[in-house]
């Protein structure tokens, strides 16, 4: 059976701005996988660990955060904080015996950038290869 992962992306206002301005159709044309759900937040530094864990609870197979480059975050340290929280979840996933690569932090240039689509495709490939998330309690 073909496996289409549920991927939840959390992007800040700035990394996703122009790309979202294109609309769903525009994104699709650019090659954005349709199974990647975009969740916009004002700043990735606002993301709590519990919000990212809830995504897994709600059935995500993979989760990623796209924030500003570490040294040019609009809110100075927002994306650095997000990266630390993602790292904490990676550790927790390892403790639970789940591949830590199921969650990732990406630091992207702001505004329109092909990397925004690229990381979505990269995560989609990675999670497709890993298969369904074991935290869903279903056997692979």
């Amino acid at each position, binding site marked *: 059976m073909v496996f289409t992962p549920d991927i939840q992306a959390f992007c800040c206002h700035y990394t996703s701005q122009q790309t979202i301005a294109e609309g769903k159709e525009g994104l699709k044309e650019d090659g954005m996988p349709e199974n990647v759900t975009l969740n916009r937040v004002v700043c990735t530094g606002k993301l709590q*660990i519990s919000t990212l*864990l*809830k995504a897994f*609870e709600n059935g995500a197979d993979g989760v990623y955060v796209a924030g500003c480059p570490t040294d040019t975050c609009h809110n100075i340290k927002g994306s650095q904080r997000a990266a630390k929280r993602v790292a904490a979840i990676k550790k*927790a996933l390892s*403790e639970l015996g*789940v591949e830590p690569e199921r969650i990732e932090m990406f630091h992207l240039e702001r505004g329109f950038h092909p990397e925004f689509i690229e990381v979505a495709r990269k995560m989609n490939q990675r999670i497709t290869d890993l298969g369904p998330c074991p*935290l869903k*309690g279903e056997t692979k």
Partner: protein
Amino acid sequence: MIIAERKPINEILDMVSDDEKILLLGCRGCVSVCSTGGEREVEILASLIKLGMKKQGKSVEIIEGTLVRQCDREYIDSIDQWKGQYDAILSMACGVGVNFIANFRPSTKVYPAVNTSFFGGSPEQGVWTEQCAGCGDCILHLTGGLCPVARCAKSLMNGPCGGSVNGRCEINPDVECIWQSIYDRLGRTGNADAMQKIAPIRDWSTAGHGGPRKVLRDDLTV
């Protein structure tokens, strides 16, 4: 305040493996301040337990609650709001909180979700260091305000020992030799002579070596 650290998730999953309904109980006191067992951490641990159980093919119901403190009887009594809704309590307070639940709820199962580490402070965000060991007979007036009981690896009363090198402790160069710092501080405050005084052999009965301790304030007991 009391500094604590969450236990490894698998140790917690083992504790609760036979319980279907868990009251996960945070504390708004010390453990909230050190970001280990407050409301936010309760939410995170609840998610981790649910995910971990699901992975094992089990389901669990978690009630999330946070008390003002778990080290006062009046707040422990407020646990009754969840009466009959759980099989066991998983406390995110320090060991005092877990003991208090056990003391006052004799037939309730209670587990610790954190390791109670020490009495300490936070010199910078995300870092906590031990400062006091609660010895019950404070001598900080003799040691320039720096505690040799908690901060000297050997709890020496007449330090430093021969292992002090360039202000560092012999157990690890990352550890400050507190006796060197005591000497430096006494010098800066015009008290260097105090180093010459020999501290007498200490009576450690106040430090817990005489059994569990108790403080009674008669003026407060009515």
